């Protein structure tokens, strides 16, 4: 195996040393830390951006809560106003209804009174008419002269 030929070790190790030294000091050292710095800068930037986003989210949440509270207060106030208005309207309607009812009752009463009056006067008129008719009928049928007053008296007797 050529790998175990010690005659080549010197040159391999020498050139490995030269090339690896070049690699580390000429290639890696001037380039890689730049990328490392950028990676670190990016990490801090991302972290600070995340922090800011978190803070913004917190203030947005606070604003939303505030807004919701304001909306709730306004809604409650509006509901209270509506309820008050409804109550007042109901009360007014009730009062009006009562007044109208009272007026109607009074009308009905006067109507009933005048009806009763009319009925009594009608009944009185009826009695005299009946007495007249009866006396006339009695005079025609029986030939007896009876005055309406007698008829009325006889009716009152019964």
């Amino acid at each position, binding site marked *: 195996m050529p790998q175990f030929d010690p005659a080549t070790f010197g040159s391999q190790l020498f050139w490995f040393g030269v090339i690896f030294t070049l690699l580390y000091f000429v*290639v890696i050292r001037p*380039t890689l830390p730049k990328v490392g710095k950028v*990676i670190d800068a990016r990490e801090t930037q991302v972290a600070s951006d995340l922090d800011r986003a978190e803070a913004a989210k917190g203030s947005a949440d606070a604003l939303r809560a505030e807004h919701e509270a304001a909306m709730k207060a306004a809604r409650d106030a509006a509901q209270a106003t509506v309820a008050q208005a409804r109550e007042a309207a109901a009360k007014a309607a009730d009062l009006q209804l009562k007044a109208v009812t009272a007026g109607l009752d009074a009308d009905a009463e006067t109507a009933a009174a005048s009806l009763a009056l009319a009925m009594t006067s009608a009944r009185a008129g009826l009695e005299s008419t009946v007495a007249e008719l009866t006396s006339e009928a009695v005079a025609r049928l029986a030939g007896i002269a009876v005055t309406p007053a007698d008829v009325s008296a006889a009716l009152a007797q019964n």
Partner: protein
Amino acid sequence: MANPMEQFKIETIAPLSAGGFDLSFTNSSLWMLISLLAISAFLFIGTARPQLVPGRMQAAVELLYDFIRDMLRENVGKDGLRYAPLIFAIFIFVLSCNLIGMVPFVHSFTPTSHIAVTFGLAMIVFVLVVIVGFARHGLHFFSLFLPEGTPLFVAPLVAAIEFLSFLSRPFTLAIRLFANMTAGHVLMKVFGGFVVSLGAVNIGLGIIPLGVNVALTALELLIAVVQAYVFALLASIYLNDAVNLH
């Protein structure tokens, strides 16, 4: 059939020697250099103008870097993030060396299929762990070898075992990566040989190992990525010992 070990042969491109050592520029060096160039292109384009909202290339770099950082955060903790560039360097070097050997037709070579390279990588991790351990905890770092609550009469035995297992880490790291890459490449070469030898007998017969090789290619790509991940993961677990002492 071609020797399946031939693909691992180190070929000198430009001879070079210093102080009696052979330091020639070889095909292994060439493909490590190509890996380096590919990584450079990826990183320099990806980080040319880093922006808060990344473009495609920056997003790709960030994806890999975040992957390593998350791994360190998980296994080591916040203190581990300091070592992210080094662990990233190890990860992307292993990854690109593993993958670059899978490029067909260009006579590509997998530097991480050689134990010398993987041992070099493992030694970086080992030395890092030792330096970080002593720098952070001083001599207290030795308490790593004595887990808390060990009964006194087994303490010497436990300490010896822990010490040996600590010393064996670079070897297991190196051998795991090298063996995985070597075994996969040998298997692909063997089945590639079967395609030729069976295809010579009957063209229809050659289809079977070809199908196997297609599946093996997918498996090898997976192994290339997984082994890079395993290497970086173990490096961060070992680093955790040095940073946090169990």
